[in-house]
């Protein structure tokens, strides 16, 4: 009781400062959200008009006058290339993460690998595209644009992200589980495939889905590996269209219908990415360890 009277009451000036600071911080947070609101607003305002059944089922025609066509080849192209990139980067990424967790917790080699994978997450995606361009498109190993080369560039982008997030998830699997299994006589490989991976699965899926969402939106790596093409193609050794490239191409146009197609495609892409992110979060919530 007496201690309370020793403490000086908070002066009006300090109280005001507190209120002002709080208000400023709240305002800053709201300011941070303004771009999000504006982007979504304009996507809907200018993109919804382009959306139609025709939009999703026809290829861009490239015709200068008349029907600009839809974005079918772009959607399919993105799905194909991202799927291939996922097939490449997810097993390798999880594999490297497994190495770091199961065999490399103390080793110097593993910390070097970990460090460089970390460093790779910061590399701009255009540098990856450039690298694939040098080595695979105009280099001695091959020539010409091809969808699989674009997929490789995307997988280079996804790889460090998947590795790091998988490592975090795998570390969360309690060692007690591993030790119990070892004590019961289980060999290492069985522990990995029957205990560690299944327990970490939701987290691994989340990490992979987030990487997929990111790759789906990437333009730079595809600029000089898969190029642009109007027709739908299922041939991975040929050029292939993709959503970000289609949008990038349509942005600089003066024709209103092409610009509207860009907005429609942007809306579709954002919805795709948001869905993937949402699914990733839902899966994460089911994880036993996060």
């Amino acid at each position, binding site marked *: 009781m007496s201690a309370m009277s020793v*403490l000086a009451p*908070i002066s009006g000036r*300090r109280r005001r*400062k507190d209120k002002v*600071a*709080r208000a400023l*911080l709240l305002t*800053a*947070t709201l300011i*941070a*959200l303004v771009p*999000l609101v504006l982007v979504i607003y*304009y996507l809907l305002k200018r993109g919804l008009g382009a959306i139609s059944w025709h939009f999703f089922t026809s290829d861009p025609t490239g015709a200068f006058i008349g029907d600009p066509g839809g974005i079918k080849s772009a959607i399919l192209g993105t799905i194909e290339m991202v799927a291939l990139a996922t097939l490449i980067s997810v097993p390798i990424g999880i*594999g*490297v993460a497994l*190495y770091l967790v199961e065999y490399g*917790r103390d080793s110097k*080699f593993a910390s070097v*690998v970990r460090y*460089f994978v970390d460093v*790779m*997450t*910061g*590399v*701009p*995606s*255009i*540098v990856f595209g450039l690298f694939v361009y*040098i080595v695979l498109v105009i280099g001695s190993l091959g020539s010409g644009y091809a969808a699989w080369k674009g997929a490789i560039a995307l997988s280079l982008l996804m*790889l460090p992200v998947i590795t*790091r*997030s998988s*490592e*975090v998830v795998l570390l969360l699997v309690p060692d007690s589980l*591993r030790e119990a299994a*070892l*004590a019961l*006589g289980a*060999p*290492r*490989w069985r522990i990995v495939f029957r205990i560690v991976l299944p327990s970490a699965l939701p987290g691994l899926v989340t990490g992979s889905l987030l990487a997929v*969402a990111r790759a*789906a*939106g*990437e*333009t*730079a790596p595809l*600029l*000089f590996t898969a190029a642009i093409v109007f027709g739908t193609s299922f041939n991975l050794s040929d050029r292939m269209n993709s959503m*970000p490239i289609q*949008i*990038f191409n349509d*942005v600089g146009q003066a024709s209103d219908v092409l610009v509207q197609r*860009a*907005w429609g495609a*942007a809306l579709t*892409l*954002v919805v795709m*990415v948001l869905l993937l*992110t949402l699914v990733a979060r839902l899966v994460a919530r089911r994880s036993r360890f996060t």
Partner: protein
Amino acid sequence: MAVEATTTSMAGSGRSPLERPLRARFPDRLLRWVLTALAAGILLLIAFFFVRLIVEANPALSKFGVLHFAFDNDWDVSRSIYGALPLVVGTLITSAIALLIGVPIAVATAVYLTELAPRRVRGPLTVLVELLAAVPSVVYGLWGVFVLIPKLKPAEAWFGRTFDFIPFVGADVAGPNYFIAGLILAIMILPIVSAISREVLATVPVGDKEAALALGATRWEMIRIAVLPYSRAGITGAAMLGLGRAIGETIAVTLVIGNAPQIGGTIFEQGYTLAAVIANEFGEAANNPLHRAALIAAGLVLFVLTLLVNVLARAFVVRGQRKRAGGPAQGQAAIAAGGPPV
């Protein structure tokens, strides 16, 4: 700690009951070998990456000399002269604008969300801020070209006229310019700076905060005294990660910066960045080895810049995370997972 695989065998083999038959150890060896090979493969890939970039960039670097390439103010494709100073300056200017605008807001957002937000609002607001990262870079570019540029032009012109005594501010507003590029970059780095800052702020010992409050500090004073000083290193690291992002961003920037190989006199003039020049000119350079080498050299400069910034950033963030139970992995995981599309 990794426990080595010396286990009891269920099937007796006549030898020590603790020994497993050679045949059964093979899958273990195979697994270990495959995984180690993968990890080593990553290192080899990175080394190959670096070496190949240097080799391909060499024609340009050796012709102009590294210093001249990086610091000559003349990027003239038609005369085959490649001095990258306008690009480097453009990259730095747009990143500086991005940091000046984006970091204070991101940190303020992080502080609000960790210290002041009512519990029920915290989750949804956090998700909303992170959604900024889900928007692909080309969509930001599209929005920048058709919304930001036209809508902000009058305001930019007014600002330029009223404040033209400030250096680098002028009334002549090009449509796409440094400022718009910097603004969009600020929006793009916001989620990552905010996410890392939130991680860092969460590690402040509760005891410190409660002590400040117990001594009669207001909420803001508590933040000022107990939270911010503690998190300084980590927040600096977060800002540097944002810088790394800003330096490497290509598509959104190339759509709104005007792609002019000059050093603009004001922030409302057009410019160019290292990343944008690669995206724009590689097509022309397909058969021009010197031009191609110059673009790859620009890519190399970009690569080295982002590497340096990221290495420094991680050092800061790890230092700020040292006291957390989970160790550095938690903070670095946030870094890894927080990468938005470029």
